[in-house]
């Protein structure tokens, strides 16, 4: 799971931070409430997770809380059977 965790963290940093934006993002950084990923961009993060891990995330589970940190996303993925 730690490899998945790192993959997601890297994806968030590469895709949602501007080049030159050196904010520290950790597994616990609030990425939704902290404004790194907004509610519209969340869709692209969802598509990434679905494509990368070959899963379907139900809309009801794709809440701002569930996506608010890498650790929260990992918890969601575990719930959906990703190991």
């Amino acid at each position, binding site marked *: 799971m730690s490899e998945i965790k790192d993959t997601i963290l890297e994806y968030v940093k590469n895709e949602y931070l501007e080049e030159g934006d050196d904010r520290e993002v950790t597994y616990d950084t609030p990425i*939704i409430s*902290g*404004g790194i*990923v*907004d509610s519209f961009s969340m869709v692209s993060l969802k598509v990434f997770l679905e494509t990368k891990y070959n899963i379907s995330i139900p809309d009801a589970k794709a809440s701002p809380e569930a996506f608010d940190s890498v650790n929260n996303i990992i918890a969601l993925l575990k719930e959906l059977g990703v190991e």
Partner: protein
Amino acid sequence: MTDHKPYMKPYEEEIKTFSWDISKNELGYKDGDVINIGEYCTDRICRMGKGEKLALIWEGYTGEEKRYTFNDMRQLTNSIAKYLTELGIKPGERVCLFMDKVPELYFGFLGVLKMGAIVQPLFSAFGPESLLTRLQDAGTSAIFTQKKHLPKVRNILKDLPGLNHIIVVDDDGVKPLREKETAFNMDKAERVDSFDIYPSKAETPSVLHYTSGTTGKPKGAQHVHYSLISQYMTAKYVLDIKDDDIYWCTADPGWVTGTSYGIIGAWSNGATQCVLDAGFKSESWYKFIEKHKISMWYSAPTAIRALMKDGTETAKKFDLSSLRHLASVGEPLNAEAVIWSKEAFGIMFHDTFWQTETGCIVVSNYPGMKIKPGSMGKPFPGIEVTVVDLKTSVPIEKKGVVGMIAIKPGWPSMIRTYWNNEITYKSKFQNGWYLCGDRASIDEEGYFWFVGRDDDVINTGGHLVGPFEIESALLEHPAVAESAAIGKPDPINMEVVKAFITLKPGFDQTKMLELEIMNFVRKKLSALAMPQEIEFVDTLPKTRSGKIMRRVLRAQEWGEEIGDISTLENDM
């Protein structure tokens, strides 16, 4: 709390007696006087004896809190105005605010106006291309921004020879600033007690808000200081802001609601307002209301529907009894949301309708007036609004017939022009009416009922996005041959962007490519403009002259009649 009888008299009584002179008298303004929005929102409130009253309670996503009185705000806006003057910015020049909802954004807005420049707020989530288009069009001289957004500005600086000052409000000195960049720390800046405020007059340009259209680049809707007369009065009568209210306008000042009612309307009425600079989460919002005892809340249907999704039980976990008046703007508020708000908060949301060009609320449900859930309400007294025939622009007399919403020109906050685009501005007026571009009908009791846009502009989460901009960005992706962008129905955002794409030879229709294209548009323009869905197609419907027929795609998506397709070149 004081008497909460609405400020506005019963509607039918008010429309008989209302005149904008009421607003002018209350503001102490006479035709021909100096009128500066920055002064009216700060110095004037202090002269009224409210200098020590809280003007702004700001909270960041980490829970950090800052509080400013009207006197703090008066001095700090003076500091900003003086700073800009000393940089050499002249009245009439455009100064952009490109920041999250930090205090510097709010005070920067008023500081720019105080020294006579034109303030150009831009949504901080805009990507470099959206930013470049708007700064180039406005010929912007200076921009206030934060470290986190600085890379976007740096990326486009080479194409902006006239942008001479990049003012970083949170520079920590860790990394050196570059040429043209300067640090300005508002909280540590010298407090300026007295500043020679620019003697703007009624028609002096004040604010430039960019808005999207169906074709071409975004247009800069230019307003003037006289807009205050409308914004003050509508904030008082529609939002019913009282002296002891704690007010929360959730809109970002990158858009017009965030300035007309998140700055001008609120503070010209001397209100204490709260700002939460954090992403949306139902529980965080409720906690914020509970903590600050917010009494007047102006929000948007997208947020209300997102709160609805999380259920009444989530709302009930918090003490929201401070709320006494709720209003909504951005897109039509569906009847279910109005009814749900009664269940969740014990009071109903009042829908309001207006747009960037109107500068103030023009149709609304008023405190004390019967709400018909799902209706836009009635015209604001002093503003003549009707629906006109789509072809002739003649007012429709028959009730219940759909036409274009039209306003008789002359209300104080009416747009004065589109920056560099007088032709498009003039095209908005037909047969003596300003045409809003939205369709509605009027019922027997004079209530307006929204039907939809009359063009291809996409209303997503209350923000207008132009399909042309999205399609242009899509075409820059190496895999895309042709593209069409439309709004598709969405239960939360009313519409979201959907793109139809034909691919160039050699590219396969994969989920990864879809994701890549989504991110491509998001980074170039903004998350709002990013297609939430991409459909790869073999061909797009076109007219015989080769123009893509978005309305055919839209009708298919909405399950509507396609209408006349006699000019269609190909079958889908």
